Every structure is written in C-alpha cells, then in structure tokens.
C-alpha cells in the first residue's frame, strides 16, 4: 500500500495520456454495459420461461388464425393440463412510441400456467368478472402512472376502433427477468366485438403436466391437425420466443462481434500506451532496482499502473452505462428487460481487470527483466 503513491504519481505524470487511457477504458466499458443491456432486453425474458409450456400456432404464418375448436381437442390429449387461447392485440396508447405488448387471453388456467407472475387473487377475480378489464405489469403501470381503476384508451390497429380497458390489477414478477411491461385483456371481449374474430384465436398456450410430455405433444398436436385446412406448428415457448429475436437477425453474434472488437481495440491502445510509458522510464526502473526494489515489486508497480487505469476507467464507464440504462430502453422495443444486473456489473469489472492485466503484463515483464547496468548505460 505504501507503494500506491508511486503508482499514482507515475500515472498522473502525463495528464493527457492519463485522460485518454482512462477515457479508452471508460468508453469501452460503457459500450460493454449497453451491449449487455441490449442482450438482456432480447434474451432475458426467454430465460424466465417455464420448460413445460408449448405454443401452438398456424403453420402458414402467425398472421393466420387457428379455429377455436382446436382447444377442446388439444385439452383431451394425455399430458395436457391447460390450453389458453391468445391473440396479439397491437393497440397504440397515445403514441406509437409508447409500444408495449398486449395479449388478449382466456383467464381459465392462466394463473396456473404462468407461475412466474405474482398476481393478487382479488384483483384477478375482478379481471375475470370485467369483460373490459385488463391487468398491467408493475413496470408499465409505473411508466405511465397508472393505478387500479384507471380507464386506459387504446387505438386498435389489427382490430380497428377506439378501445378502452379498466385496470383491474397490477402484477409483479415471482422471479428475476419477468417482463412486467405488458398488458393482458380478455379474449372474450375481443372475440365478441370483432366479427371476424368469432371462433378464431391467434395461438394456443399449452401447459403440459410435466416437461416429459413436451416432445410427445409436439408431434401429437401437429399430427392431429395435419391435412386439415389449418395445420399447426407446435414449439416449446422458449423456442417460439427465440424465433422472434432471430427475426431481427443474429443479435447475439452482432453483440459479441461489436463487444469483441471494442475490447480488442482497447487492448491495443492501452497495451501500447503502457509499453511506451514503461520504456520512457527505463532509467527510473533501473534506479529503483539499484535501491533494492526486487523483480516482483517492479512487476507489481507496472501492473499496478495498468490496473489503476482499468479500475478507474472501467468504473466510470460502467457507472455511466448504469445511469443510461436506468433511463430505460431508448428504442422502446425491449421493454422492461433493458437492465443491468449486479452480475453484469461484476462481469464488466472482471473484464476491465483482465484487460488491464493483459495490457500491463508484457511491459511489466520487460521492466522486471531489465538489467540495471544496461539500463543505466542507455541514459
């Protein structure tokens, strides 16, 4: 610790270099934070999905509906516990920018099928008793300042008209990464109000009694409806959601490539800065060694400088990323999952330390191996 002052004094020796190096770490780790938050926005919700759920949709396209009559047929299959008709509503609240998901659902079996949501019993029965009712996630309610009893106007897109829904309840998550930026409305209300929806559903959410049934059910359901006018495509819910993300391109690959390039550039920049700053001080390292500073201490002093840059720059970058992310997803596309967890921050700090180490280790070794007599002669 008593050597910290020397490390610190050396780092501040050239102010410009100090700020540029700190800035490099800062920018890179800020970007890291944002990329991780984007990744979370796309994939975190998927991690939270239960493995015993299936989605049955029309084989042709998600835009084509399925007959309501399939519900009873699927329910009759062995291993099926609940079948829930669902429709994508796609209403606009005040402005298109205020995007959030709205699902029209049947209430029976919903609470049992989706245990990741914490739903108040009384609020839920109010929802069951109000055909124009809706349930909203906590994040959504907070975003728009909604409270129970409020009437929410939505402009229909797929289903034209000026719709209004009464907030019956606000749900929370029972575990991490549950998407609380969504609204549920009643399927019955939609089916009654829109003539072409009568006897039609967007897709079925199916809960199997056990995950062991999932694979068998996929072939059984699709087999049952093959050669019918509305053939089905059944998938585990996780795969189904990944499909949405994939429609936007290979986001994971993009994020990893961008992140990799940024970190690699950071390594080159800080590595050459460290190498230069150590080489400039050749005679000083020789002097320290003459005074009795041993090899490991010299190694530590150089690495200390590198770590110092990494920690300060990395902390600033990650701090700014947290601040940025706390303001919410600027595109409105990723909903409430555009977040950074303590684990993510920890990963960022680890990354910055590893980068600091790699950038410093070669210059540190060269300072350590420096022979005093050679170094002093070079002056």
């Amino acid at each position, binding site marked *: 610790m*008593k*050597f910290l*002052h*020397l490390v610190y*004094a*050396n780092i*501040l*020796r050239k102010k410009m270099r100090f700020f540029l190096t700190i800035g490099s770490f800062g920018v890179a780790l800020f970007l890291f934070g944002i990329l991780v938050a984007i990744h979370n926005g796309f994939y975190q919700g998927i991690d939270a999905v239960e493995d015993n759920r299936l989605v049955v949709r029309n084989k042709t396209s998600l835009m084509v509906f399925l007959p309501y009559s399939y519900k009873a047929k699927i329910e009759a299959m062995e291993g099926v516990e609940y079948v829930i008709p669902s429709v994508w509503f796609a209403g606009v609240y005040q402005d298109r920018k205020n995007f959030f998901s709205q699902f029209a659902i049947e209430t029976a079996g919903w609470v049992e099928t989706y245990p990741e949501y914490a739903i108040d019993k009384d609020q839920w029965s109010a929802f069951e008793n109000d055909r124009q009712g809706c349930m909203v996630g906590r994040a959504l309610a907070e975003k728009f300042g909604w409270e129970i009893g409020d009437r929410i106007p939505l402009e229909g897109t797929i289903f034209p008209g000026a719709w209004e829904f009464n907030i019956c309840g606000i749900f929370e998550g029972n575990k991490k990464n549950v998407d609380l930026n969504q609204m549920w409305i009643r399927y019955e209300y939609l089916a009654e109000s829109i003539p072409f929806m009568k006897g039609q559903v967007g897709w079925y959410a199916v809960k199997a009694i056990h995950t062991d049934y999932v694979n068998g059910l996929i072939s059984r359901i699709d087999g049952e409806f093959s050669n019918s006018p509305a053939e089905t495509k059944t998938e585990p819910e996780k795969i189904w959601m990944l499909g949405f993300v994939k429609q936007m391109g290979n986001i994971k690959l993009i994020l990893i490539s961008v992140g990799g390039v940024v970190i690699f550039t950071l390594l080159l920049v800080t590595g050459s800065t460290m190498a230069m700053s150590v080489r400039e001080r050749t*005679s*000083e390292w*020789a*002097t*320290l*060694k*003459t*005074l*009795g*500073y*041993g*090899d490991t201490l010299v190694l530590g002093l150089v690495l200390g400088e590198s770590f110092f840059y990494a920690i300060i720059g990395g902390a600033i970058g990650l701090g700014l990323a947290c601040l940025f992310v706390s303001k919410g997803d600027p595109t409105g596309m990723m909903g409430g999952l555009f977040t950074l967890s303590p684990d993510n921050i920890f990963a960022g700090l680890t990354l910055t330390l590893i980068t600091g180490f790699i950038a410093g280790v070669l210059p540190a070794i060269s300072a350590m191996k420096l022979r*005093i*007599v050679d170094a*002093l002669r070079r*002056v």
Partner: protein
Amino acid sequence: MVSLNPSSADNAHISVRELHKIYKRGSESIDVLRGLNLNIQAGEFLAFMGPSGSGKTTLLNLIGGIDVPNSGTITVDGQRIDSLSSSALTRWRSRHVGFIFQMFNLIPVLNAFENVEMPLLLTRLNKAQRRKHVETALDLVGLADRMKHYPRQLSGGQEQRVAIARALVNDPSILLCDEPTGDLDRESANEIMGLIQRLSSEQNKTVLMVTHDPVAAKCADSVLHLEKGVLVEAIAQAQG
C-alpha cells in the same frame, strides 16, 4: 590504507581478488577487468581515475552488486557477494550500499522527501520512523527546507544533495559515487565534494568515487588509476 596486493589484509572491509569482467558485444568480447585486486579498509575514501571506457563504472557496479563478475571474488565484511543469488544481492545492496550517480537519477514525479523515502519503503519502518530518517538525511545534506520541492524545482547541486540523502538514508557503510560532480558547475561540485568528504570523515563511510576531475580527486585519501583492466598505481595523498 588501500592496497593492491592480492595476498595482504584478510581483515579488509572490501576485498577484491582476481576480478575478471568480460562484456560480449555480438561476436567480439571486451575484457574490461583483467584480474583486478584491491583491499579497502573501512572509512577509506578512494578516487578512481582513468580513461573513458577503462572500466571504472564496471568496477563500481561489481562492488555495489548491480553486476556480477565473470570470475574472481568480492568480499565485503567477510561476505562473498559475487556468489549471491540475484534476490539476495538485491537485499544486500539495499542494506549496505548507497549509490550516487552523475545524472542524480531522482524520480521526477516524487518530491525530495518522497525520493529520499524510496529505500525506506522496503524496510519495516512505520511512517513516523521513516519520516524521522528522511528528515535527518535531508538535514545532513542541508536541504531540510526543500522537502516538498520536486527535482525540476531544484538546482543541479541540490538535486545531487537529494540523491546523496537518498543514498544515506538506510545508513549504508559503503557509498559508491560514479562521477558525482560530472554534471555540475565548479561551485556546486565543490559543495558536493565537501559533503562527501564530511560523510567520509564524520560518518566513517567507505567512499569509492569515480571521477575525471583532478580537483574532486584531491578530496580522496588515495587516487587509483585504472588502465588496461587493472589498477596500476596508487598515489597516497596528504590528509586534508
């Protein structure tokens, strides 16, 4: 009294026997020291002179343990330092030898106090003890009022005095000075020589000094000439 006789004075403070140092540069090798012998008593003040490239610095480096000989022995207070491991030599150096260089070799980002404190950071002394030692050393070189000054805020002579304080602060028995006045004007040089002389006489340090300056050499008890890899003559001087 200094002696160049290999057989004499087993009780010498520093004893150098048949010292060889060869530097290899590509295919050619330079025999810098060729069987050099030297006995030095504690508290002696020796000056080494000789043409540039004759191996004066090499000899000091070997005695100070920042370089190792190809053959021959160096014994200091009965301890063979030529056969110590690199880390043992580093520790030995920090306890027994103070170095003073022509270019002062201060750390520019540390002030006078912090520069002098550098060797003490390697000891077990606590902060208060270190402070006391540093103040004593800076007081001894007459810079007690310049502790917070950085090297660039000091004159050459003052910088060299800080360097001397740094060399002294561990209380080593040997001071090795490689052209300590080579970069100074006459007046500062005289000041520095006066200081080194005082350290030799009052603090009983053994001082080995390389110099090109006959005036500086006069301050030493004896002057040795290094030529063709050996010490060729000793001129005993009148004290004072």
